[in-house]
């Protein structure tokens, strides 16, 4: 497919869409689908057919505010309906052309106002199973215009200029990484997309892969051109079957129209992508473990250097980025590095997608410019803590991150600010906790997770996490002593310093951050044998001391 053919196709898709008087978009992401969005779409289809109106009913990816689901948005008016049932379909279709059904409508203007959508720009607007829908919204324009107009170095320069940093958690500058792999010696190179999303409580990568799969593929193809690779792998969790089937279909469609394969856009550039399934191992989010898993082995990490940039998949130079990073690439190529650079804070550019969950009114996916304060995310976009409860902490970064207390939420979100507060950006899970959550119990939960997920290769992680879990259990059950706290801190330092990979190095973070900000809760469990949140079953029987 040439750039002219692509543009022709985009114009005809837009013309076809414009033929309809109304577009009824039905969110069919996991959260809405689990509440009967499929039946709602069928009912809408039937109601439209019966009404004789000129309406397009489209299934889309995640619209964002999942707690209001199942959601339906009617365009061009942008009327949003919430908590729908199949029996509402006739009413909604009947109201097209006159006043919207006010009792089903929801006003989430404050929720959407604070957001800037780059990664999620198509979410809620395209049918993920149709490549035409993606092309109609400027999809693959970046890839083809790049192939005809830009050199690989030019692409890397633009990504560097944008200031994009890895969205998988570490925040390594993407342009720098691409440049390193491009310069690495060797004819065969690989592009790998990390779609393992092991952080429990985060689901933005799932949503992007399911709701806009072509965006990831386009980003990978651009990366392939920039670094000189003709083969890519997407590593997806087996727990995301829909993401796997959507990506499989998207790859097939892209090959069919000639956007993947040999001599793309009549150039010498060849590129194709293969899907690899994960099998439920958190450690496979670590890049060297992920590569081992793609090679069909146990997901054991290895020491670095050599970094995958010089010796990765089957010993070849390999570029590894996560889903959200690749999802940012096409818009950067299309709109320029400066456009991206102008968004965000001083050292963290662009936007970040967060999975806002827990004790908050508007749970779901939000995309905000970097630098926005946590308070704004929680109170304005998230709608605050419901049920008259008091906000206690926000957990970011999953098992590698920390808990940020309510009194520190004025800080703007950036890689460096979160790190300074003892947490990390992570992949973007943001879990809001209120006064019914016990921080000792939360720390124990994460430690149990890390203990189970430790691959067992290095001793500090394997033994350290188990020991820390024992100590935390002892404290939570009311058998702990003040010496245990010291021992715990000591162990945290050892595991952090001496572990081989990121899993162990960051495993103490949830403990360290809760010890720093919520020490009183630990002491309450130890000294007064009581759990302030009423979660832990603290034993009241005093231990008999000899």
């Amino acid at each position, binding site marked *: 497919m040439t750039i002219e053919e692509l543009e022709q196709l985009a114009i005809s898709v837009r013309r076809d869409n414009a033929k309809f008087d109304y577009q009824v978009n039905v969110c069919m992401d*996991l*959260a809405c*689908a*689990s*509440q009967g969005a499929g039946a709602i779409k069928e009912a809408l289809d039937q109601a439209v057919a019966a009404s004789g109106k000129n309406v397009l009913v489209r299934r889309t990816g995640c619209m964002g505010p*999942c*707690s209001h*689901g199942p959601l339906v948005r009617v365009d061009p008016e942008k009327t949003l309906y919430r908590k729908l049932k199949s029996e509402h379909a006739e009413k909604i279709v009947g109201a097209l052309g006159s006043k919207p059904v006010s009792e089903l409508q929801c006003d989430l203007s404050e929720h959407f106002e604070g957001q800037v959508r780059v990664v999620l720009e198509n979410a809620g607007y395209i049918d993920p199973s149709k490549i035409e829908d993606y092309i109609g919204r400027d999809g693959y324009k970046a890839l083809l215009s790049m192939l005809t107009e830009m050199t690989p170095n030019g692409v890397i320069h633009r990504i560097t200029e944008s200031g994009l940093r890895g969205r998988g958690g570490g925040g390594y500058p993407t342009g720098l990484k691409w440049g390193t792999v491009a310069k690495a010696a060797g004819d065969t190179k690989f592009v790998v997309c990390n779609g393992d*999303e*092991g*952080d*429990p*409580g*985060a*689901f933005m990568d*799932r*949503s992007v892969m399911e709701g806009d799969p072509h965006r990831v593929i386009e980003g990978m193809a651009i990366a392939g051109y920039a670094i000189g690779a003709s083969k890519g792998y997407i590593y997806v969790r*087996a*727990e*995301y079957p829909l993401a796997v089937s959507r990506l499989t279909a998207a790859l097939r469609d892209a090959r069919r129209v000639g956007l993947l394969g040999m001599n793309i856009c009549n150039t010498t550039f060849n590129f194709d992508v293969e899907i*690899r*399934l*994960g*099998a*439920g*191992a*958190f450690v496979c989010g670590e890049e060297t473990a992920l590569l081992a*898993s*793609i*090679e*069909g*082995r*146990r*997901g054991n990490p290895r020491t670095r250097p050599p970094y995958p940039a010089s010796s990765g998949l089957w010993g070849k130079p390999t570029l590894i980025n996560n889903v959200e990073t690749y999802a940012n690439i096409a818009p950067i190529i299309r709109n320029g590095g400066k456009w991206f650079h102008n968004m965000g804070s001083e050292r963290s550019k662009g936007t970040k997608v967060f*999975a*806002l*969950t*827990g*004790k908050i009114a508007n*749970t*779901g*996916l939000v995309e905000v410019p970097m630098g926005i304060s946590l308070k704004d995310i929680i109170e304005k976009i998230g709608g605050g803590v419901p049920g008259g409860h008091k906000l206690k902490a926000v*957990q970011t970064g*999953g098992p590698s991150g920390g808990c940020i207390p309510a009194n520190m939420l004025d800080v703007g979100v950036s890689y460096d600010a979160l790190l300074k507060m003892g947490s990390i950006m992570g992949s973007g*899970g943001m*879990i809001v*906790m209120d006064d019914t*959550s016990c921080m000792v119990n*939360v720390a124990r*939960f*994460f430690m149990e*997770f890390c203990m189970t997920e430790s*691959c067992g290769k290095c001793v500090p992680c394997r033994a350290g996490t188990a020991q820390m879990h024992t100590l935390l259990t002892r404290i939570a059950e009311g058998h702990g002593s003040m010496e245990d706290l010291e021992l715990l801190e000591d162990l945290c330092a050892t595991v952090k310093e001496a572990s081989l990979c990121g899993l162990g190095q960051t495993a103490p973070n949830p403990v360290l951050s809760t010890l720093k900000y919520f020490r009183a809760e630990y002491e309450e469990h130890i000294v007064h044998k009581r759990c302030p949140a009423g979660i832990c079953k603290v034993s009241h029987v005093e231990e008999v001391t000899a």
Partner: protein
Amino acid sequence: MASFIPPALPSDDKRWKIVHATMRKNGFARHALIETLHTVQSSFGYLDEDAIRFVARSLRVPLSQAYGVVTFYHYFNLKPPGRHTVTVCAGTTCFIKGADKLIATAQKRLGIETGHTTPDGEVSLMVARCVGACSRAPVTLMDGEVQGEMTSEQMLAQLERWTVE
């Protein structure tokens, strides 16, 4: 190496042909081990010793390595699942919203620990790390179907329906 002939299928069960197709698609390469095991599990529901031996021999992977991979990844099951499976998500958000209570309720009702199947082979109780439906926590999967904002009562009612069947 070009003369390598993969071993015969363990039986004339048609599902082995699907497994064979996966391996052939990957040129019987060693790196197709995990892919092949996925196919076995999706076809048979679990991985038994015969299956692991067959896959290892077909891909020329040491049996120890194949067994190592099977036991390393949580997704692979060595035991046959029950007729029904209830999976409780124990991701962070589900945990905050009371997944531990759901697990305790299910354990008590079924009389088994997580990861096990009732002696009559009816119901398996599993725990998932995170199914990515965090916005509707706590989440359970009833025979693979995601159900959000689950309560103990709803879960018990579903288990009851399964026993009545």
